């Protein structure tokens, strides 16, 4: 078993100011707990998949030989300027890309200076990977539905399992994306919407008790009423990376909380 950890995490620029809102502090603590766990498990590679890195023409795998720079967030440009540096395992990216193509998911490895890495992945890596473990990233393909995303993940899981390193799979995604659309006082940030709040509570209850039937009902019924992040494709991605191709053990949900009205989560699978 070389995939030793899986996590679903939500990040946003607000987490750079955890002191402003106890809920931000909670999410940061959750991310730090995951990081501690990665260390304990001896994680040697992290594979990120983020709903904020979109591909439309086939799959994309990050293979940047010089993935360094300063990223200014498109929304929070006045407060979120992120210097970043990733050590990318180019061979791993190439293997995943080749494996995906063989399985009917053609795509490309990305190795371009100044390629715009998404805010969510940069912030996730800042918390989860202070020691700069080599990583790669897989884009979220908008034309792969949940089923195809799961099947791509299953194919890639086989490749990861055949590696010798201990690998962590991290999906970066929000639950709901009902952002506040006007300026708020960050100290008063809360998950927006009654239905969204109910969804988050039901979601957490279902995954924490391994009640997968309720989870799929919650997603199908309640999820359809709210703005979920990319149709919660992150779950399909993660499920595809489970050895049996489905969730079995209960998740360890460390925390949920608001990110400018959207709902965030930090959970270990």
């Amino acid at each position, binding site marked *: 078993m070389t995939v030793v950890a899986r996590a679903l995490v939500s990040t946003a620029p607000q987490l750079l100011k955890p002191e402003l809102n106890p809920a931000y502090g909670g999410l940061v603590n959750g991310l730090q707990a995951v990081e501690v766990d990665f260390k304990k498990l001896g994680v040697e590679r992290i594979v990120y998949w983020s709903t904020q890195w979109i591909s439309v023409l086939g799959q994309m795998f990050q293979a940047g030989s010089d993935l360094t720079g300063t990223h*200014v967030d*498109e929304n929070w440009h006045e407060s979120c300027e992120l210097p970043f540096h990733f050590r990318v395992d180019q061979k791993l990216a190439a293997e995943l890309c080749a494996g995906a193509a063989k399985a009917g998911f053609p795509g490309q490895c990305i190795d371009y200076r100044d390629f715009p890495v998404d805010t969510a992945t940069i912030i996730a890596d800042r918390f989860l990977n202070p020691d700069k473990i080599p990583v790669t990233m897989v884009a979220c393909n908008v034309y792969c539905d949940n089923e195809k995303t799961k099947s791509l993940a299953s194919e890639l899981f086989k490749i990861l399992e055949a590696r010798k390193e201990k690998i962590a799979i991290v999906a970066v995604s929000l639950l709901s994306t009902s952002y506040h659309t006007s300026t708020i006082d960050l100290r008063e940030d809360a998950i927006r919407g009654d239905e969204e709040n109910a969804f988050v509570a039901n979601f957490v209850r279902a995954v924490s008790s391994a009640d997968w039937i309720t989870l799929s009902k919650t997603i199908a019924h309640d999820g359809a009423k709210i703005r979920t992040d990319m149709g919660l494709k992150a779950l399909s991605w993660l499920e595809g990376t489970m050895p049996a191709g489905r969730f079995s053990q209960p998740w360890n949900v460390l925390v949920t909380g608001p990110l400018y009205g959207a709902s965030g989560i930090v959970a270990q699978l």
Partner: protein
Amino acid sequence: MKTTRSGNGEIVAGFLAPHPPHLVYAENPTQNEPKSRGGWEPLRWAYENCRQRIKELKPDVILVHSPHWQTVVGHHVTATPRLEGRSVDPIFPHLFRFDYGMDVDVELAEAIVDECKGAGLEAKPMQNPKFRVDYGTIVSLHMLNPDWDIPVVGISANNSPYFYDDKIGQEEMSQLGHATAKAIAKTGRRAVLAASNTLSHLHFPQEPNPGLPEDMSCEHIQSQAQYEWDVKIINLLRAGKIDEFFEVMPQFCREAFAEIKAGGLTWMLEAMGRPRYGAKLHGYGTVIGTGNAVMEWLPDNSPKSDSQASGGQK
């Protein structure tokens, strides 16, 4: 850069200026790292006409509304004197890695933010010089003015058309258009507007010939239905049937996944007072299956070239 001038500013032209990065790639400007054998000439020839027109009009500023700078809270406006750096298209990085440098009309940008706020809209100036300008903004600006010798203002696409419904979203863009027009008038600028939008937007799931992205033998519209929608929209705009256009726009956006949903065209047409004169079509072409029209609106008080003065689209 202009200094303060008050009153009497005007919008001297508006362009529908689609931004497939393929067009810049095909041009082979020194700023773009990947090189090509050309391609998509009909659209690039269409842009050549616009360049000519812009030179004639001698505007102070070009404003562009881009769907690839999407913002959640309000409308953001570039408001720092100089923006430069490298912009890599996250979708087509093999085609577009562009070293840009642009002077920003900060005074106008700030006036737009003020007018927006005065109208009750959320708005924010973007004052960080390290901000990476999106490829939509750059492609439209480069295709309209490859000399980059006219100051610019970039306006973000607020997410409201996707977050709320068509009515709320387009109403927001309409108000943004009015605020933009007021700011232009108050600051005394001669302004060109650019709506950075493709029409029908469903495209091929893969590049047809990855070895030669500019292989024009592979280029065609994604579907006949999409083509017919584009023709319908172009004809309405050529005939100046603006009310009819706005009436069918939501259906067009739904059925052809049109990029104008992001609001750029609504913003521009509203800023120009919902022009009832015909737009001039400079060209139509497909890029990996999407439908792109390069069109021009020239208000009555702007000098007309021979072709336009003789009637044509009026």
